[in-house]
């Protein structure tokens, strides 16, 4: 009996040690509103992962229309019909990345890309990059793990399907309820299905977009939910419709930084500047082909 008391005492000690105060979150220094992004970055250059370089993380493969172009020789990314190379500067996010870098004071060859799995972009501990850019949606819960920049893209979710799918012609969420839908893991697309459609058959959650598309082709899925621009890229035959905002707020993509990284403020300056002078819209028009006439599910 007594040895168990001893063990219990030790456990309690450990638990007490664990229950320490949370270290207060520091806010990054507020950049003065008059500062340019480049000045800000120069000021905070000690926070860069690699000196004089903007290291950006994204997934591999990187899908069109977010990343396009041909593979550079020696690049980890292999381009194809549906995939591109971040180094190319083609595709919305790739183009946006280089524009952002320039605004923050980096030249083209001062941008380095690293391939990370989605999980790595928010895993605890120091990061091997400055920021992650991978069509990551901003949410309050996620803010606990990373620091987001301001949104750089407003995103909606859309449903795609192939010829012969029972999803085609649906205009209301109720009509989608009995269908078998799927989406890639870690996306708001999945949330859209679960919260907006609330289907009778569970949504398929796939490690990657192409696995979801495979099941769509097999006929095991009636439709796949993806973000709007991806929907129009031609991964499936038909864009059936778009979804209203999940949770009521406009969903936005943001850049994910390590918590308390002061560079967030600098990136925000850059993004706001690009938004104000219309560059964000230009990029959108150049790289993303969307047909806003597609009906919204009611």
């Amino acid at each position, binding site marked *: 009996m007594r040895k168990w008391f001893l063990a219990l005492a030790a456990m309690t000690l450990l638990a007490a040690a*664990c229950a320490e105060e949370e270290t207060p979150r520091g806010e990054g220094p507020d950049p003065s509103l008059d500062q340019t992004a480049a000045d800000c970055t120069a000021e905070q250059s000690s926070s860069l992962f690699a000196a004089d370089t903007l290291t950006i993380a994204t997934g591999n493969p990187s899908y069109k229309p977010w990343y396009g172009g041909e593979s550079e020789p020696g690049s980890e990314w292999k381009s194809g019909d549906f995939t591109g190379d971040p180094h190319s500067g083609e595709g919305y996010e790739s183009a946006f990345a280089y524009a952002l870098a320039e605004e923050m004071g980096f030249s083209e060859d001062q941008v380095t890309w690293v391939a990370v799995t989605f999980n790595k972009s928010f895993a605890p501990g120091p990061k091997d990059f400055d920021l992650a850019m991978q069509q990551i949606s901003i*949410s309050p*819960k996620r803010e606990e*793990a990373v620091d987001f920049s301001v949104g750089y893209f407003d995103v909606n979710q859309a449903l795609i399907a192939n010829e012969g799918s029972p999803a085609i012609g649906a205009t209301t969420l109720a009509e989608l309820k009995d269908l078998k839908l799927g989406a890639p893991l870690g*996306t708001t697309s999945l949330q859209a299905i679960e919260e907006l459609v609330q289907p009778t058959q569970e949504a398929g959650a796939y490690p990657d977009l192409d696995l979801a598309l495979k099941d769509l082709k*097999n006929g095991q899925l009636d439709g796949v939910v993806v973000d709007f621009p991806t929907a129009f890229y031609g991964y499936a035959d038909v864009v059936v419709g778009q979804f209203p905002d999940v949770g009521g707020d406009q969903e936005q993509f943001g850049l994910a930084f390590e918590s308390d990284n002061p560079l967030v403020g600098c990136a925000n300056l850059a993004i706001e500047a690009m938004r104000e002078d219309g560059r964000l819209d230009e990029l959108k028009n150049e790289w993303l082909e969307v047909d806003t006439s597609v009906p919204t599910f009611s």
Partner: protein
Amino acid sequence: MSGGREIILPNGTPRPDPGVPAGDRRSRVLGGGGRSTWIAVLSTVIFFAIVGFLIVSSSGWPEVRRSFFDAEEFAYAFPEILAKFWRNVFIFSVAEILVLLFALLIAVLRSLPGPVFTPLRIMAAAYTDLFRGVPTILVIAMLGYGMPALQLRGLPDSDLFWAIVALTLVYSAYVAEVYRAGIESIHPSQIAAARSLGLSRGQALRHVVIPQAVRRVIPPLLNDFIGLQKDSALIAFLGYTEALLRAQIIQAQDFNFTPYVALAVIYVAITIPQARFVDWLIAKERRRREGSAQL
């Protein structure tokens, strides 16, 4: 002591029993009774206290704690994951039953003697080689994505079906080898005795060899079963939401790894009773095992 037969040496003293049965394992782990138990407990507690302290006082600990041991996230994730876990239970329960039967068939085919059965032996051997060689995830992917793609009439489409088939195929290969080891460990004199009583080869196998063989290989059988329980999560690759995928979904949505810890807790909670159950089975069988044919 162990409660077995006592053997009296020629000089009249009893010979000490060399083995400690599994039921006494706890005291053996703690190093015997009395004072040494105290030292064992104390040193264990101190060791873990030190390790715990080192972890907790490291600079990255608050971040890791938030990311892996977030109480609020745990409270949210645990019931969701547990609800999905019943799917894993279904998958590995059905698969295990099929595996235990199918693997026995393969093991028996593999051990059929005589030239007329050579093709069967070869097929059984090829089967075990193939399915122990190919990674389980590949088999699941090929069956789960490939079979429906063939669009053959009559072939089921369901992820659940193909995942169970895939797991059964793979694990039967491993378990067949476990059975085979058990069967071959039965002394040939047992078979001779059975045959001499006029039992056919099949009857000898069924009544004498296999019952003994299976009892002998219960620990490795449980090992493989535990592996199967973990591998039931591979159905996630097909997009089918079981416990692990549910954990992944929450994790990706909230950028927090605590759901994985919740799942780990569930797995450990079911594994421990199984291990103790098998220990009990072994202790019970140990008395049977020291049988007559040991000369």
